[in-house]
Structures are given as C-alpha cells and as structure tokens.
C-alpha cells in the first residue's frame, strides 16, 4: 500500500514534469515568435526609405521650383511657341508635389507638426495649380503673363522653404522616435534572448533528464524482460519440482491402494491403510507448503498471531516425528526454557511449519545419534513494530535444533545462507536447490522478521539457530502459574549419559523442574546413595555393570527412569521407560509420579 502510494506520488510528479515541459516549449515558442516579431518590427523601424524619401522629395520640390523659376526667367520671349516645354517643366515640378501628397511619404508627412506640413503642401499645390492658366498663355506665345507668373512663383518660395524646414524637423523627430522604438525593441530582444537561453538550458536539462530516464526505463524494461523469462523458467522449474515432490506420496498411495484392491488382500491391511493416510497427509502438506510459498512470493501471506501456550506446541511438533525417528533409531528431546513466557502471541501455524522443516531436514541428514531442540530467549534485539492491543512488548525467541548427523552438503549450505533482507538476495533460496521444507522455512523466518543461522561440520552434525520475534501478552492466563513443588527441595537426580548434547538437554529439563542433577558423563553407574532418582541414558558400561547397578538401586528402592533399551528390557528391573522425543511434560509427569510415591512410602515408614 505504501509502495503504491509512492508510485502515485511519482506519477503525479511526472505529470507535473510533463506539464512543466509543455509550458517550457510554449514559452520557448512564444519567445522565438516574439523575437521574430520584434526583429521584423526593428527591421521596419530601421527602414530609412520612407522618411528619407520625404526629406528628399521636399528638397527636390524646392530645387525643382528654383529650376522652374530659372526656366521662366531665362525663357526666350521671341519664340512663337514653346512646344510644351513650359508645361513639361511645370509637370516636373508638380510631380514632386504629387510624390509628397501620395503613398507612404504622404502618410508620413501628414503627421509632421500636427498636420501643418499638409496644410502648407495643399497651399503650395493650390498656388501651383493656379499657375496653369498663365502657363497656357505663355505656352501660346503670350509672354505678358510671364512677370506675374514669376512673381507668383517667388511668392510660393516662402511656403516651400517653410515646408522643407518642417519636413526636415519632422523627419528628425521621426528618426529619433524610430531609434527609440528600435532601442526598445533591441532591449526586448535582448531580454527575450536571455529568457530563450534560460528556457533552452531548461529544455536541455529536461532532454538530458528525459534521455537518462528513457535509458533507465529501457534498462528496467530489459531487466523486466529478463525477469519475466526467469519467472517462466522458474515456473517450469517449480512445476517440475511439484511433480517431483508429489510423485512419491502419490505413488505410495497408488501402490498401497493397488495392494488393497488385490483379490487376495494382504495380511498387513492396517499398515497399508496407515501408509495411505500418512502419504495423503504428506501430499496435503506439500500442497499447503507450495501454496504458502506462492503466497509469500506474491506478498499475500498474512501472519495471524494467536496467544497460546508455547511448550505443548513445540513438543507436539517433535512428537509427530516419533515414528519416523524411531525407525531410524534417533534419539530426540525438546527443551523449552522457562525464562520464556508460558503464553506467547505468535503465528503458531508458521512456527510449526518452521519447526517441521528443520526437524525433517535434521532427520534427513542424521543416520544415527540424536536430535535436540531448544527453544529459549534470544539475545537479538526485537524489531520495532507497533504493538497490538493486549500486548505488553515484543521479544525474540530462539529455536536451536542440533543433530549429530553427517552435515549438509556445501551447495545446500551456500543456498541457505541467502539473506532476503539484502538487495541482491531478495529471492532467497529456491525450493529446487534447498528443498521445499527448508525453502518455506527460510522464507517464513524472514517474513516473520526473524533471522536464520546455522553451523555445520562434516560427520559432526548441524545446528540451526532461528530467531523469531513474538508478542508478550499483557496478562498471562491463570494456568500459566507454576504449580507448587511436589518433591522436597534438594531432590537429587543422577543422570548417566555419555552423549553431551543429550546430557545437557536432560539436565536443563531437570533443572527447570527444580531438581538437582548429578551428571555421570563417563557413563559410570556408581551411585553415591544420595540420589533420589536415577535416569539411565546411553552408557557403554551398562552392559558390564548394569545388572549390579539395577539390583543395588532396587534394593534401596530408588526409582529408575531410562531410555536405554538394555535397562528397560532388563528382566529384573522396575525401570520406568522414557520415550523419545523426551519432552519436559513427559519427564515432569513421570518424575512427579515416582517422587510422589517415594514421598508417600517415606511417610509410611
């Protein structure tokens, strides 16, 4: 959910980034168009033709008026006709007036000095138009009109001069204003250019970022493709693995069913039925494990902690393998440290799966010897998690499982050392490399925010340490309170056991029952006569000294417990048998019974 929110945020960020990019492109486009427009305007403002033409034509008007006047003054008055020359000169003059009254020049000149130039030009034009009558007379050879004509042209000179002056002044003002506009445009262009440059830098940044993002996406895409391929391959491997795992129990079921269906039923029908049942359970377990693995991989497996008594759960886990271990002649025992709260809140189903996987692995790699299971408080720090209601704190328990087998292969050890909390090892060990049980166990441990460590020595066995956090309920139920002692203090137990691991676990179990333990780790059967109860374990000396020892213990009515088959099956003994897996509850029940009887007998005596 959190990841999803993160992606949403990223998506919104990218969306804004896209909007920013679009805005940037629009700004760049506007800046470019503005620059083009301003440049174009500047080009127009810079065009000198119109106002230069105005000034030129004004000066040409003045010049042409002088030329016309000069022509009239120098006119040969003896000529009978001028052949249109006078009108030719007149037209030349009038063409200058027309040029100033038409087109762009006229538009420009019209605005000079608030239209005063236009008024002057109209006066000049009107005056010149009025000359056409006298001019036609002169053209016809009547030179009497010549002085008047000359005089009138001279009189226009003042207006023409003033007109030229005003046009000159207006042109200068116009040039100044155009220069100002030009300068403003240049400033605008400069500003726009800076803006454009900044935008281009931003665009470059976006492009670089975009390209790197694209590269990243391509890389990610390639990686995803590789992952997809890997998933397909993994799926094929998984299906092959499922096929391999389920084949054995299915074949077992089919074989037993076939034997039962035989027309001549076999003698061991009960055993076959039991076999079918076991195989069915095994198949069901495999399917459940596969389902759990899939759920873990899909991050859909949710833990459902329940508050229950820890010890029976742990003992039951080991007890369910008693048959299996008995067939291999393995000795097993379990010890739950009383330092742990009797009732804890944890997903017991997952704890059981972890334990089952570890025990199965231990059985598989142990051909003879013992398997011991300890559950104790861990020294690891508890993860910081929010506390649910009714929970006082979070602590960590450690499951330590030790076997005396031949040890695991190096390849299996290497695969099991994967730590899913590290980025490169997220997948964890694959079922095809470590087996279904251990793969699920490994994933479950890390799913429960625990850790898994192990140590292995060839021919000496392995020891697994699994740390798992658990919740401590605020209130322990009533039955969690320890019962009053059923035997006196300082009750001594003699433990004869040469296997140090077994001796250690049984000692711990007895100590937990507040019994003093005297350990005969060399297997010696010598009693110092102070022991209230004797536990006979593995001892090479039993064969030689066992009979005498049993006789001696019997004579002084000392109860004897044993899991040594020689002691149990001794014809003259009253040894109470201990069964594997040796659990605290089994020991407590038997010791309570024996010591209570002893107490009663002592009282009677």
């Amino acid at each position, binding site marked *: 959910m959190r990841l999803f929110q993160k992606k949403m945020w990223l998506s919104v960020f990218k969306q804004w980034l896209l909007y920013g990019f679009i805005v940037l492109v629009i700004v760049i486009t506007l800046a470019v168009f503005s620059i083009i427009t301003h440049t174009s305007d500047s080009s127009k403002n810079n065009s000198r033709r119109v106002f230069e033409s105005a000034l030129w034509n004004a000066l040409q008007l003045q010049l042409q008026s002088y030329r016309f006047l000069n022509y009239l003054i120098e006119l040969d008055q003896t000529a009978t006709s001028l*052949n249109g020359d006078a009108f030719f000169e007149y037209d030349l003059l009038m*063409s200058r007036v027309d040029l100033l009254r038409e087109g762009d*020049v006229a538009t420009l000149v019209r605005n000079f000095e608030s239209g005063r130039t236009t008024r002057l030009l109209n006066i000049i034009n009107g005056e010149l138009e009025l000359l056409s009558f006298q001019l036609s007379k002169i053209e016809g050879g009547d030179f009497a009109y010549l002085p008047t004509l000359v005089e009138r042209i001279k009189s226009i000179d003042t207006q023409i001069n003033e007109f030229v002056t005003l046009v000159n002044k207006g042109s200068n003002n116009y040039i100044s204003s155009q220069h100002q506009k030009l300068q403003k445009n240049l400033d605008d262009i400069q500003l726009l250019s800076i803006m454009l440059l900044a935008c281009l830098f931003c665009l470059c940044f976006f492009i670089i970022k975009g390209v790197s993002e694209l590269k990243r996406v391509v890389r990610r895409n390639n990686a995803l493709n590789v992952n997809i391929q890997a998933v397909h391959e993994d799926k094929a491997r998984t299906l092959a693995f499922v096929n391999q795992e389920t084949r054995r129990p299915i074949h077992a079921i089919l074989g037993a069913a076939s034997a039962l269906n035989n027309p001549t039923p076999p003698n061991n029908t009960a055993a076959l039925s039991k076999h079918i049942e076991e195989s069915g359970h095994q198949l069901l377990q495999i399917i459940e494990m596969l389902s759990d693995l899939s759920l873990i991989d899909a991050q859909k497996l949710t833990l459902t902690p329940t508050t229950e008594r820890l010890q029976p759960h742990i003992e039951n886990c080991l007890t369910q393998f008693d048959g299996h271990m008995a067939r291999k002649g393995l000795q097993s025992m379990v010890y739950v440290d009383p330092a742990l709260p009797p009732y804890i809140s944890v997903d017991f189903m997952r704890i059981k799966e972890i334990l089952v996987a570890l025990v199965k692995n231990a059985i598989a790699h142990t051909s003879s010897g013992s398997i011991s299971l300890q559950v104790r408080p861990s020294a690891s720090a508890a993860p910081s998690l929010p506390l649910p209601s009714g929970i006082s704190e979070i602590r960590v328990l450690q499951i330590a499982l030790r076997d005396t087998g031949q040890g695991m292969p190096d390849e299996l050890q290497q695969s099991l050392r994967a730590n899913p909390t590290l980025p490169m090892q997220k997948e964890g060990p694959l079922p095809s490399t470590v087996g279904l049980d251990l793969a699920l166990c490994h994933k479950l441990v890390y799913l429960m925010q625990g850790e898994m460590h192990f140590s292995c020595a060839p021919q000496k066995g392995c020891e697994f340490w699994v740390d798992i956090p658990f919740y401590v309920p605020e209130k322990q139920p009533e039955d969690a309170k320890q019962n009053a002692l059923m035997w006196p203090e300082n009750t001594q137990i003699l433990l004869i056991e040469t296997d140090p691991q077994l001796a250690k676990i049984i000692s711990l179990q007895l100590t937990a029952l507040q019994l003093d333990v005297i350990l005969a780790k060399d297997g010696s059967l010598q009693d110092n006569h102070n022991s209230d109860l004797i536990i006979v374990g593995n001892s090479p000396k039993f064969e030689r000294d066992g009979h005498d020892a049993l006789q001696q213990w019997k004579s002084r009515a000392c109860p004897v417990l044993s899991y040594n088959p020689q002691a149990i099956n001794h014809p003259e003994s009253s040894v109470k048998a201990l069964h594997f897996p040796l659990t605290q509850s089994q020991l407590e029940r038997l010791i309570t019974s024996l010591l209570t009887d002893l107490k009663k007998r002592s009282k009677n005596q």
Partner: protein
Amino acid sequence: MRLLFSFLLLILANNTVAADMADTPTGRVILTVSGAINTKLNATFDLAMLDALPQYTITTHTPWTQGLHTYRGFSAVDLLDHLGSTGTLLQITALNQYMTEVPLSDFLDNGAIFATRQDGREISVRNLGPIMVIYPFDEREELKSERIYGRSIWQVSHIKSIVLTE
C-alpha cells in the same frame, strides 16, 4: 534543325526591328543614349522609336504608386543591341538630374524594363514618366530591397552605357 530555325527567326526579328525603327526621332525626344555606343553623337529617341523595340510587360505594385499597375516597355538589352553597345553598366539620369547606376544584368536576370506605358497609357511627367525603370517586385521578393529601390529611377531622360572592365 530546330536550333537553326530559331537562330534564323532571331536574325529576321532583329532585322525587322532595325528596319521598323526610324533613325531619327520625329516627335519629342524623351531619351538620349550616350557612352559606349556605335555612333559618335548621342543617340536620341522619341516614344515611337522606343515603342518599336521589343516590348515587355510587368504587372506589379511599387512603393511609390498606389495599387496594382501593368507596365509595358523595352529592355535595355534590346536598346543596347540596337545601338551596338557592349556596355554592361547603365548610368541613368532623370529629368531632375538624379542619377543612378543599374547593371545590365538587372535587365537580363532580374527582368527589369524601361516602362513607357502604365496600364496601357503613356506615362506623363507628372506621373513620373515618360520612362520608368520597373522591376517585377511582386514576382520576386528579393527585389524588395533598398538597393533595388534605389535603382528604380523614374522620369528617365538620359542613359550612358559604360563598359566595365574587370
């Protein structure tokens, strides 16, 4: 064969132009040509003589007239051919003594003409006639420049043919 026929037609046309064109003006002289021409004196032309030269038409706007006008007139190339001139630069003078220089290439490459008619009518002096140098401004945008505007002289009265040597 086709080339030979075209060449013969061209010679015939030139001869026809030369034959149709009177040697001396009968009307008012509107153009004088001097410089690198095959006569010792200046060559003078009236409108009829100029009309006898091959005529070309340009329809365009100009900066100094309003609206679209059709101009008709002769090319400097034909005029110089007629005068046997090898000039490459024309020094053109207007009635107001304004003078400008126009390379002959403008008449060859840029399609300029000496216009004697505006919208089919003679151009009066008052309307910037009788002869104007007109470029096809509307056809070719690159001609709308200060340089070409400066060469677009009107009220043309005199042309001096100059041979430029490299």
